[in-house]
C-alpha cells in the first residue's frame, strides 16, 4: 500500500464516518428541528416505541400530526403517564402540540410513538426510515436509530421520570 492509496483510504474512512454521524444529525423543516430520533430496542415480541426531541423555534404553534415508520403498519402518537399507581396511555388523536418557542420531548414514560404491527424486529444499531408530518411545517423524512435505551437497573430515572 503506497501513500496515495493510504490517503484515499483515510479520506474514504473519514467520509464514511461523516456519513454515519450525519444520520444522527438534527433534521430541520420550517421552524421545526427534530433532534435525536430513536427507537428503543424492544423485548422480542413486544411493541416498540419511537422517540425524538422536537423544537419549534418559530413564532407560531405547530402540531405533530402524523408519523410513518418503515416496516410498521401503524405509528400512533401516544401520551403515557402515571396517575397514582395506574399507568395511563392515551392516543393523541389530534396530534401532539409543539408550541412556538418550545421543545417537546418524546421519551420513555412520556410522549412516544407506538409502533404497532411491525414487520421488522428492531435491533440496536439498525437504522429505520420514517416521516414526521407537521400541521404547518409539513412533512419531513427522518432516520431513527435503534438503541437499547438504558441499562435495565438504575438507568430508568435518567430517562425522564420527571414528568411535567
Amino acid at each position, binding site marked *: 500500500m503506497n501513500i496515495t492509496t493510504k490517503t484515499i483510504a483515510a479520506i474514504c474512512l473519514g467520509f464514511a464516518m461523516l456519513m454515519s454521524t450525519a444520520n444522527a444529525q438534527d433534521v430541520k423543516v420550517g421552524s421545526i428541528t427534530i433532534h435525536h430520533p430513536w427507537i428503543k430496542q424492544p423485548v422480542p415480541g*413486544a411493541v416498540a416505541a419511537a422517540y425524538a426531541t422536537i423544537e419549534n423555534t418559530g413564532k407560531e404553534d405547530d402540531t405533530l400530526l402524523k408519523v410513518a415508520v418503515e416496516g410498521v403498519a401503524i405509528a400512533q402518537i401516544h401520551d403515557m403517564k402515571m396517575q397514582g399507581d395506574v*399507568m395511563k396511555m392515551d392516543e393523541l388523536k389530534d396530534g401532539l402540540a409543539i408550541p412556538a418557542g418550545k421543545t417537546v420531548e418524546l421519551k420513555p414514560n412520556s410522549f412516544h410513538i407506538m409502533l404497532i404491527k411491525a414487520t421488522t424486529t428492531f435491533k440496536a444499531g439498525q437504522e429505520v426510515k420514517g416521516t414526521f408530518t407537521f400541521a404547518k411545517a409539513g412533512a419531513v423524512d427522518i432516520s431513527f436509530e435503534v438503541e437499547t435505551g438504558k441499562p435495565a437497573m438504575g438507568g430508568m*430515572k435518567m430517562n425522564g*421520570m420527571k414528568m411535567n
Partner: protein
Amino acid sequence: MANTKSLRMTLWTVVALCAAIFAYAYFSGGAKNLIGADFGAPFKLSSTTGGEVDSASLKGAPYGMFFGFTHCPEVCPTTLNDMSVALKELGEPAKNFRLFFITVDPDRDTQDVMCDYISNFDPRIVGLIPTDNELQKVAHDFHIYYKKVATSDGGYTMDHTATLFLFGADGKLKSTLGYDEDKTEQMTKLKKLLAG
C-alpha cells in the same frame, strides 16, 4: 338548652370530620394501608409453565405479583426487565422467589403469546392467563385497575395499575414496588422480603 344544641352541633362536626379523615386515609392510601393485612384472595390460574398455579401452593417462599399486558411498550417490559436483573443481583436468597405476571388483556395474551413474551425474562418470572371472568375477580381481589382504551386503528391499549405486590412466605402482603420508585429503595425492599 342553647348550650346542649351547640354541644350537639360540635359533636356532630367532630363525627363528620372523623369520617372524612377516615375516608381520605382509606381511599388515598391505596395499597400502602393494606400491608400486613389479608390482601388478595385465593386464585387458581392458567400458567405459562403449563397447568395451573394455585395460590394455596405458594406459601413457603416469597413471591411477587404484577399485572400488565404484552402489548405494553414501557411499564411492563421495564418492570419485568428490572426484576430479571434484580433477581440475578440478589443471588442465592432469591433462588425460590417467583414473580407472577398476570395479564389484564387475556383477549390478546393467549397462552402462546404469553409463553413467547415471558421467555424474554428470568425463568423465575411466570405468566398467568386468567379468563375474562377470572380476571375480573382477581383484579377486584388485588385492587387492580384496568381499562381498555380504544385507538384510532380499531385496536386498543390498556391502562392498568403498575404496582408490584410482594408477598412473604406466609402469603401475606409485605410491601409494594411502585413503578416510579427509586431502584435502590426497591432493592432494599426486596432484600428485606427475602431475609424473611
